[in-house]
């Protein structure tokens, strides 16, 4: 935007730029520090942790904490590590993401290109679902899941995440489809294409960016969820975030900080991986989600 070189002398401007770069670099270190400390701690032995410093590199790199965290650490009464819970998370996150994204796509399609009387009111009513604090639905939902016989099951978690994720995915797709000119659909209708045909053949093929945004957003949200996991599941059916919290906060005997850190990185890996691979879409999802506030 505004370049300061117009108004200031060359010398002070150059000094200013050094200052800016230094500041930005320091802030980079601040953001990266926790990740670095987690990683280096997870590769240290307990002795090394006690004698060494928080920010030092491991004296001898050991992968034992990672192996322990993955398959040996005790979480609750089971001592089989994070792996069980890691796969648990995948088992409900993937279906929940796919179902909520598909439902959001259909909803968005209807709410923009097939509007009917009351559809706008319906959309506003749905958006309020994005605003409510989920505490307000926990007790009835726990009861309902119990009645349906899916409390503390993978299906129960899929159900809950789909129900409360659809508001967001609908918002994404609706805001995307609003930009599609009506003429496209009208022309297809004159040619005899029906509701579903238009969706599969015309709308879906041009939706790739928003599908990616929705999948990434939902994956991050559901993977990182803790509240629903801790309330609606226990024991073997818990997601990875709940297992991590249990591992870290219910320690018996020696606290294995290195194992804790390895477990934390394991729990963070899938979303970090997505961020690194598809950062652009990730940011777009965040800003699209920010519309809802």
């Amino acid at each position, binding site marked *: 935007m505004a370049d300061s070189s117009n108004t200031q002398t060359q010398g002070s401007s150059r000094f200013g730029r050094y200052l800016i770069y230094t500041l930005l670099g320091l802030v980079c270190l601040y953001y990266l520090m926790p990740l670095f400390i987690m990683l280096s701690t997870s590769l240290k032995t307990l002795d090394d942790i006690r004698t060494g410093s*928080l920010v030092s590199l491991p004296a001898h790199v050991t992968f034992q904490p990672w192996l322990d965290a993955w398959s040996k650490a005790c979480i609750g009464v089971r001592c089989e590590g994070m792996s069980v819970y890691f796969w648990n998370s995948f088992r409900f996150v993937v279906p929940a993401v796919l179902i909520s994204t598909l439902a959001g796509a259909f909803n968005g399609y209807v709410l923009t290109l097939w509007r009917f009387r009351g559809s706008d009111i319906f959309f506003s009513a749905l958006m309020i679902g994005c605003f409510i604090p989920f505490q307000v639905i926990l007790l009835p939902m726990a009861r309902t899941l119990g009645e349906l016989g899916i409390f503390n099951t993978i299906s129960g978690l899929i159900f809950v995440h789909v129900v409360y994720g659809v508001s967001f995915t609908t918002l994404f797709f609706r805001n995307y489809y609003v930009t599609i000119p009506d003429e496209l659909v009208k022309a297809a209708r004159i040619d005899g294409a029906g*509701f579903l045909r238009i969706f599969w053949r015309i709308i879906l093929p041009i939706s790739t960016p928003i599908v990616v945004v929705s999948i990434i957003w939902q994956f991050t949200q559901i993977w990182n969820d803790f509240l629903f996991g801790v309330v609606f599941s226990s024991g073997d059916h818990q997601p990875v*975030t709940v297992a991590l919290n249990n591992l870290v906060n219910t320690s018996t005997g020696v606290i294995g900080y290195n194992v*804790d850190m390895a477990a934390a990185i394991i*729990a963070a890996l899938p*979303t970090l991986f997505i961020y690194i691979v598809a950062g652009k879409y990730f940011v777009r999802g965040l800003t699209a989600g920010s519309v809802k506030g």
Partner: protein
Amino acid sequence: MRRFLANEQFEINCSQAVVMRARRVRISKIEEMVMLASPPSAVDDTVRKPCRLSLSDRIETWLPKIILAPTFVVTLLFIYGFILWTGCLSFTTSRMLPNYEFAGLSQYHALFANERWWVALKNLALFGGLFIAGCLAIGLSLAILLDQKIRGEGFIRSVYLYPMALSFVVTGTAWKWMLNPGLGIEKLVRDFGFHNFTFDWLTNSELSIYTVVIAGVWQSSGFIMAMFLAGLRGVDDSIIKAAQVDGASLPVIYWRIIIPSLRPVFFSAFMILSHIAIKSFDLVMALTGGGPGFSSDTPATFMYTFSFTRNQIGMGAASAMMMLMIVAAVVVPFLYSELRSSRRG
């Protein structure tokens, strides 16, 4: 419009008229003119003669609504119905199991007589205020710095933003380790030679809530930076050029022209941050567990503890309703003022 002028088969004409009626909101001006211009009998026919639609046409007409129906039912039941249900529970004497003995406002009386709830509210105010202010200040500063034609901006931006991909539980675990007095930052600084340095906020019941602020700001400020940066990129360059010609210095331009024009970004950022603050549950659970004692409780952890570990469902429901009202108290006025100003603009 071919559909009205060239239709020979009544069946198609009829079904489309139904569709047209259903979608009359969307009929464009041009289409309206064509409809008026078309022979009146054609239009009248479709209205007067009883429509006999084939089954598939009827399904076709209803399909959009059928598709929307599950979401409609789910929203009605699982959002609005459940809010009502929780509201009902908060007026009962429910403890370990829900019962429906009407108890008036007694749960709310008990709630506001509970010291722990007041601690939670005080913490929410403290945490919310500092967290929002911290994120806005850091986010805006970083965005302004990054907007000075920085080399490697993309990389720096992704570094600032990556904490947003992490779970609050992971963030809490990491900061819990770094802030622990025995081996964390306290020890690090002492090893540098400052032997009297203490940084025991995590285990100090007066200060534990501030550790949540530190971790929360670390996680969310990068995202706010990205929002402000997008806002800065949208500021009209010509206004800035004009101000420069008038001799305004860069800080003055930012303070007087650019920052005021970011009002909408402040608005959305405030909404998001206050939302995160009110819902703050995972971060507190992972970092302090609400402790020491209940010194870092927030309404979200209070609700969880009373509903699910202390078997006080009635009071848990009452606290959940209070949370809903806090959200409404923050969101509604802001939404209202924003809608009004955007309508005016």
